[in-house]
């Protein structure tokens, strides 16, 4: 500090050097960010390019990095080869039910925990917390038993219901409900509104931003879940798109692998969640910040 006060001239000189450095720093920042963005985007660009080429172009050496014209043929081939329509439908059903179910279930429990006193509240709360420590890989074998006992193998129920418990969702809504002034609920009560009416016409409308944020995160989670659908489905027509794509990956064999068709399929499978993120950008960022803390 004393050195700073020693001479204003020195400080001024340093400051202008700092300004110059900042401008230079700004250019460097842009350079680094642009390079990062380009490097990050390259694998997707490459996949898009391959998906427009012929098999010969896709497997040529040196590799061709420019798009070609076989767009329609490749995508139609991919659609037919993998029964992509059915797979995408399964993924959509699973992702939407997981997202909507998780939101509904965690909202109801958060509502009960914040707005009611009841015996066993602490136990319920800790039970929900402990689910964080029990991801799918730690219950591989016995989960299948439960699902098959219920007769849920190869069903949409089996794909979605078991994934609907959500500690993060419950915590998120609990946090949010606690910031809502008590007077609001008291006023609603004075007006003769019961708890469900209060939940429906006041809490839910107030929670819309949180719901949207959670929806993006959970839709992406449901769409991209891999181990779960792999375990609870055995028939091709009940597989999800992400798992179905694996069947297209060539494992040795003598025929020339149709990488152009595989990449077209990959693009179709990855597009929906990425589109949700891009079009719901604002809520996605909110969701990332809120659910991961």
């Amino acid at each position, binding site marked *: 500090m004393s050195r*700073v006060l020693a001479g204003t001239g020195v400080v001024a000189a340093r400051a202008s050097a700092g300004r110059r450095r*900042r401008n230079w720093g*700004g250019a460097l*920042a842009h350079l*680094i*960010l642009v390079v*990062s*963005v380009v490097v*990050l985007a390259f*694998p997707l660009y*490459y996949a898009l390019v391959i998906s427009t080429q012929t098999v010969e172009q896709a497997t040529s*050496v*040196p*590799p061709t990095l420019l798009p070609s014209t076989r767009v329609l043929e490749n995508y139609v081939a991919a659609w037919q080869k993998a029964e992509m329509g059915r797979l995408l439908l399964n993924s959509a059903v699973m992702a939407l039910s997981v997202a909507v179910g998780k939101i509904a*279930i*965690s909202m*109801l*429990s958060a509502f*009960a925990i914040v707005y*009611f006193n*009841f015996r066993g509240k602490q136990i*319920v709360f800790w*039970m929900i917390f*402990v689910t*964080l*420590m*029990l991801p799918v*890989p*730690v*219950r*591989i*074998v*016995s989960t299948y*038993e439960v699902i098959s006992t219920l007769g849920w193998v190869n069903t949409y129920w089996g794909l979605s*219901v*078991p994934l*609907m*418990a959500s500690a993060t969702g*419950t915590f998120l809504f609990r*946090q949010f409900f606690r910031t809502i002034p*008590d007077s609001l*609920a008291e006023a609603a*009560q004075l007006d003769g509104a019961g*708890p469900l009416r209060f939940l429906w016409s006041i809490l839910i409308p107030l929670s819309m931003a949180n719901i949207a944020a959670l929806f993006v995160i959970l839709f*992406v989670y449901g769409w*991209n879940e*891999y*181990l779960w659908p792999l375990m609870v489905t055995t028939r091709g027509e009940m597989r999800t798109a992400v798992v179905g*794509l*694996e069947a297209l*990956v060539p494992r040795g064999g003598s025929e020339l692998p149709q990488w152009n068709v*595989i990449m077209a399929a*990959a693009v179709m*499978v*990855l597009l929906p*969640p990425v589109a949700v*993120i891009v079009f719901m*950008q604002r809520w996605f960022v909110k969701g*990332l910040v809120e659910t991961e*803390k």
Partner: protein
Amino acid sequence: MKRAVFRNPWLPYVLVAPQVAITLGFFFWPAFGSVRLSFYRASPFGDRLIFVGLGNFQRLFADAAYLRSAVTSVIFSFIVTLVGLALALVLASLANAKIRGLALYRSLLLWPYGIAPAIAGVLWLFIFHPSYGLLPYLLSFVTSYQFNWFLKGWVALTLIIVTAVWKQFGYNLAFYLAGLQAIEASVLEAASVDGAGVVRRFLAITFPLLSPVTFFLFTLNMTFSFFDTFGIVHAVTQGGPGDATSLLVYKAWKDGFEGLQLGLSAAQSVVLMVVVIALTTLQFRYAERTVTY
């Protein structure tokens, strides 16, 4: 603390019922089943279970293949986490300037979050493809070494590491950039005026002030690389060549679902449970201090 507003003897139980039912049926019961099963072995004809005490665990820890898998998983997770974080931290620090368009950069960095690990794996598989991939082609100008992940274990491991780092990179970078924005520019400027160089400022100020972000990203990336990378291994390398990329989650699944060694697979699930409990505890140790649930 918020006052519980509504009074109703049964409504709160109805509200938490779905969450509790799913938690008990699909989390607690199968987790309990995994623990129970880990003490049993199927009889030679598979018609009944024989109690073997800690026999499965003894077998597991005496099994060279399992120990290799554990070592591979630890190496994989630490490389993915440390390389990913170091890369993101260095680039974020260099790019830390007041520049325009940060929101746009953030969007362009975050979209890979929407891509399933398995699909990310397929995109990189092609880039690494020994016959017509871009990377082996470029490397062929530099060296005659065959970068063939079908044959060489370390190349296959590199492939899944690159995939995982790529998938997490934009996310890590975006969180570091946000963390850096929160550091007062005046602190760094004061240090600069006091004569601290770039490296010294980084080590003495930026790095310590960013430690909460680093800690958060560390547990998140460790959890990701331990548990969410199953899809990459299953869709791309299938644990091979040999067992070079047989990560713990993949091995637990394979021994249980393909090998039908239920007891052994359950014992592996129990080991994974210990890992996830450790990671979650670590995460909430820290979270307790910053957010109150």
